[in-house]
């Protein structure tokens, strides 16, 4: 029963549809021969007057005799089936709120009751936007640009709010091309650098629907406005601040570079990159330089003038020694012991020799001796310390090589053996201590200094 009922309902609906109740039926016949002659265009404008919309149509061929022709729109209307457009010279229009804005309408050119040509159009797809108004251009000196503002009537409308604007400007004189700027807001800026200085410009704006449902055409251009660009800054005024700051900065940088270059070695580099002291230079500063250049020779004959004594033993002594003269006070007991020992040595070696106090020692002979044979008298720096008052000119007084081992092979040339430190074996004997033992075989301090420098020279 239900299936039969459905079938009857469907058949009845079809009958109703065919009977033309929907209002979407095509009216009239198309005259192919007249279709091309009476081709036309239409566009709609929404809410031009409150809730009323405007439909405007016209023939493409303006020479057509439109005396008995009229336009009719049927379908997609709220409460009526068809509406006839009004005629104003060659333009046909109608202002109504009856547009459904949904679906397509059939717009036909009628000659009497005969349809000459028809077109299916959806009112929401042929929307022509309304032209903007109140176009203004203001120069902003602080921003170096021109602020462009205008009013868009669509902002106040109910259905079509979103439109795209096109601002066009060009120099007023000449036939330059228009420069276009697209935007969705009612204000924009034109940077001054894009414009010619001291020139008059013309500007205008138009709109087009930008919506996923309403589509259509560009509006008419707004009334043009003009604005003038200011003169260039160089001619009119001079801003001294920026160039002065720039020049001062450059000069300061240049001065800093020069100062850095001049003071680099002496002041800056030692602070930034301190270097380790050169031990040679440091030592040379401590030691006296030899007065004369020394000739090195290993010829035994050159040692004839030197007093060479065999060292038979080395005695350890606990003494605090230093290189500098008169640093430590003399210890009489030790010094006496040393002096006695030295005297013994010297007595064994050459009885005729006598130990004279260091004051009587002459300076020249040790230098001469050292000049001839550095290896003999060139004890390692750590091994000997001398009193500056020691005068080794006394050949009778044997030197004290307290760190030297006995050399049985060559008694005339004691071989100096380097010892690590002076503090243990009495290698370095304070000068002040040595003075009472001036008769001991202590190397002349002068000789030691000379020896050291010669050592480095040899190196």
């Amino acid at each position, binding site marked *: 029963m*239900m299936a039969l*009922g459905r079938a009857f*309902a469907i058949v009845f*609906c079809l009958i109703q*549809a065919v009977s033309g109740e929907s209002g979407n039926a095509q009216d009239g016949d198309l005259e192919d021969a007249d279709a091309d002659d009476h081709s036309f265009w239409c566009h709609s404008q929404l809410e031009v007057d409150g809730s009323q919309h405007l439909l405007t149509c016209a023939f493409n061929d303006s020479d057509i005799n439109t005396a008995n022709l009229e336009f009719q729109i049927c379908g997609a209307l709220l409460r009526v089936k068809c509406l006839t457009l009004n005629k104003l010279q060659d333009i046909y229009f109608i202002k109504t709120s009856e547009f459904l804005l*949904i*679906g397509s309408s059939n717009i036909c050119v009628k000659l009497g009751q005969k349809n000459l040509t028809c077109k299916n159009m959806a009112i929401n797809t042929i929307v022509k936007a309304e032209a903007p108004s109140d176009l203004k251009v203001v120069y902003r000196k602080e921003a170096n640009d021109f602020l462009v503002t205008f009013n868009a009537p669509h902002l106040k409308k109910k259905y079509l709010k979103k439109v795209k604007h096109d601002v066009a400007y060009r120099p007023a004189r000449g036939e330059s091309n228009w420069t276009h700027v697209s935007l969705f807001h009612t204000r924009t800026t034109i940077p001054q650098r894009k414009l010619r200085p001291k020139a008059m410009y013309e500007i205008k704006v138009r709109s087009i629907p930008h919506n*996923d*449902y309403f589509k259509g055409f560009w509006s008419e251009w707004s009334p043009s406005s003009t604005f003038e660009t200011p003169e260039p800054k160089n001619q009119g005024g001079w801003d001294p601040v920026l160039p002065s700051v720039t020049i001062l900065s450059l000069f300061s940088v240049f001065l800093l570079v020069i100062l850095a270059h001049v003071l680099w070695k002496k002041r800056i580099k030692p602070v930034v990159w301190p270097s380790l002291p050169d031990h040679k230079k440091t030592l040379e500063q401590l030691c006296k330089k030899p007065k004369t250049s020394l000739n090195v020779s290993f010829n035994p004959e050159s040692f004839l003038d030197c007093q060479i004594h065999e060292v038979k033993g080395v005695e350890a002594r606990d003494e605090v020694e230093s290189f500098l003269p008169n640093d430590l006070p003399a210890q009489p007991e030790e010094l006496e012991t040393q002096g006695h020992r030295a005297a013994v040595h010297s007595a064994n070696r050459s009885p005729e020799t006598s130990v004279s106090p260091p004051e009587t020692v002459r300076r020249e002979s040790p230098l001469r001796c050292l000049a001839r044979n550095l290896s003999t008298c060139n004890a390692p720096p750590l091994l000997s310390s001398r009193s500056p008052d020691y005068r080794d000119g006394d050949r009778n007084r044997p030197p004290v090589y307290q760190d030297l081992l006995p050399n049985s092979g060559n008694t005339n040339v004691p071989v100096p053996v380097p010892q690590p430190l002076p503090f243990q074996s009495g290698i370095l004997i304070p000068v002040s201590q040595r003075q009472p033992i001036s008769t001991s075989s202590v190397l002349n301090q002068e000789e030691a200094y000379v020896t050291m420098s010669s050592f480095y020279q040899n190196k």
Partner: protein
Amino acid sequence: MVLLRSLFILQVLVRMGLTYNFSNCNFTSITKIYCNIIFHDLTGDLKGAKFEQIEDCESKPACLLKIEYYTLNPIPGCPSLPDKTFARRTREALNDHCPGYPETERNDGTQEMAQEVQNICLNQTSQILRLWYSFMQSPE
């Protein structure tokens, strides 16, 4: 004539037993129509009036079913509701984008519905607007 009348009555009776399935509607197109046209009509009629929501729906087809029912059927106190602009446009949207949507004449309403009560109309309009909100937020 008798046969046609009988068929008409039969159609009405059968139609009363049928409910359209809105599952096949083009929800995208209906959404565009609602956002750009029907919504502005509803809010224009309400003019800021607010009423408590009574009806709700959980899916787009269910929402359209209720929207269609409340929009296109007169109620006591608001017989002109189906003739309002938003109602006509709702019907047109369903006609264009719901295949097979039955386009039928509806009753003008009984004499009891003839009296127009503004608040009733506004309340009904508010309920319809809420149903459209639910439609926008509901899954297909």
